[in-house]
């Protein structure tokens, strides 16, 4: 195909040299079109940040920075004006994502090692595709699965089991329930494993062959080679991948709101219902009163936006550092 396209291009190109007028229009036209498209991408970011801050203005001017530290979320307080604070949702966002990455990171690294070092050549691509398809499952379906299948299993089996053995730890105390922090964390784990795996695999594949062979030549076992060569060499990339996964977990609204129980509370127990920034927006946007209530939700969106921009910038810097090398 490549060759024939080139031939056609060459032939038509010779004819085109003569038509100078179209060049005079076409050249700047394409320049303008692609310039505008590029500008749009940059402008969109600024526009999003501006709009969110603008629409959150009412809540920002009323609660200020204290919004972040306040635990109250009561739309009916002060005769229906409402009193709002973000702390329970920030806590829920951090804890659910942290647990998710705590489970997802070693799992994803292990899968990436399997795919780059262990798996027979024939199964490498199919397994890699299957793991990435996990990321293609729409979050609303994962949430439905979380409500109707994972939730009952957690509430009836896993949580009572954890409680009977580890109940003395505050994390595993409290009443087992199908909805709550643990369910959300597990759903987020399923969503982040494919992301971390895909990037880690890419990073591990770029490990210089002579370093690996060097380790083998010194008598290292396969695991020793992985531990002393692949993991240290790929570390910045894996860190970047984990931070990217974190960004994804922070921002997931739908699946989390389906399974977390949507409660405004800070509880040590992982079994207890909780809320996250993103989930709270998805859960309450419809019932929020058009004034302060809506503005407070948009304030939550603003906090989420700032966090995710910071997280993504850091992650990209890490991942890029590896790619450049």
């Amino acid at each position: 195909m490549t060759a024939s396209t080139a031939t056609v291009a060459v032939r038509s190109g010779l004819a085109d040299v003569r038509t100078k007028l179209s060049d005079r229009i076409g050249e700047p036209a394409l320049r303008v079109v692609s310039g505008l498209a590029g500008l749009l991408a940059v402008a969109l970011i600024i526009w999003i940040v501006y709009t969110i801050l603008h629409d959150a203005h009412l809540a920002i001017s009323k609660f200020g920075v204290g919004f972040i530290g306040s635990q109250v979320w009561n739309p009916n307080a002060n005769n229906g004006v409402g009193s709002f604070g973000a702390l329970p949702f920030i806590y829920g966002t951090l804890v659910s994502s942290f647990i998710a990455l705590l489970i997802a990171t070693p799992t994803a690294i292990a899968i990436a090692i399997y795919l780059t070092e262990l798996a027979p050549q024939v199964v490498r691509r199919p397994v890699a595709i299957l793991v990435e398809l996990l990321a293609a499952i729409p979050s609303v379906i994962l949430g439905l699965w979380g409500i109707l299948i994972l939730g009952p299993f957690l509430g009836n089996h896993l949580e009572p089991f954890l409680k009977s053995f580890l109940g003395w730890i505050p994390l595993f105390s409290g009443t087992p329930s199908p909805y709550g922090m643990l369910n959300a964390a597990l759903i987020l784990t399923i969503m982040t494993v494919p992301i971390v795996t895909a990037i880690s695999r890419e990073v591990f594949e770029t490990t210089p062959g002579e370093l690996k062979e060097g380790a083998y030549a010194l008598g290292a076992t396969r695991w020793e080679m992985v531990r002393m060569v692949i993991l240290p060499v790929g570390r910045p990339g894996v860190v970047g991948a984990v931070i990217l996964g974190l960004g994804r977990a922070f921002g997931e609204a739908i699946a989390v709101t389906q399974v977390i129980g949507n409660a405004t509370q800070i509880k040590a127990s992982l079994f207890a219902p909780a809320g996250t920034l993103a989930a709270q927006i998805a859960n309450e946007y419809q019932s929020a009163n058009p004034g302060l209530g809506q503005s407070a939700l948009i304030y939550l969106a603003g906090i989420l936006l700032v966090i995710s921009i910071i997280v993504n910038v850091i992650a990209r810097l890490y991942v890029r550092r590896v790619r450049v090398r």
Partner: protein
Amino acid sequence: MESSAAGAPHALLTAGPDARRRKAVNRFMEVVSTAAAVVAVAVLALVVISVVIKAAPAINLKFITSNPQVSPFGVNTGGIANSIVGSLILIGLATAMAVPVGIAIYTTEFAGSRVSTTIRFALDILNGVPTIVTGVFVFGILVLGARQSGWAGAIALAIVELPIVARSAQEVLELVPNSLREAGLALGLRRWRIVLRIVLPTAVGGLITGSVLGVARVAGETAPLLLTSSVFSNLGVTTNPSQAMPNIPITIFTLSESAAPQDHAQAWAASLVLILFVLLLSVTARTFHERSRRRLRG
């Protein structure tokens, strides 16, 4: 290990005192890695199989071809035809907006490296914006003070789709051999002709599959639609994008929040329709994408 290597060469040739332990650790870590991969694939299978089994009682031709009918008891006994039509229109509009812009960005073969680095950075940030925030943004500029509409939903989806399409377009266009561009330049072609007649036609396969991957990604997006196209006044098919349009993700979300088991059966059936659509698109696009990339690499 290092000391033995430096000290006595023959120590390497005979098994060291801890060879058995090292081998056992190696074996253990191999098993752990393999198990992790098995678990990941098993979870995918578990989710897909649950959807298929749970959807079985409710899925049939009528479910796909008829509109929702609410029985006197408030239970939906109809299908999701209106959501399927709505979803197709929303995705179509979003793709029609995102794909040309996404490809146009990477025809910036004119741009200097600083400009293209800035644009790439902006796209990365845009890709990292949580989709619910994208929903809030479009809600702020189009819905607030007006009402939900198919246009608002499609624009929200387009913003989600744009960085994905642009990213894959960039990848593919960078694979187009420079020798082709140089051949054009040598013949005295202006750049715009090289882009339109050589670079884009050479990369068209990869551009299409990249776009299909973008479609697969936004087909299941719920959060951007929640604030922009989720409240419907009628149960029929809506083809006018100036009204809120029913769509499959929102339908699944609403049904999943219900307490009625019949609604759950419907949610599973709708999920099956969506998951088949998304997985089919992803698998075919991925297969073709790989093929066209390989062909470009030569």
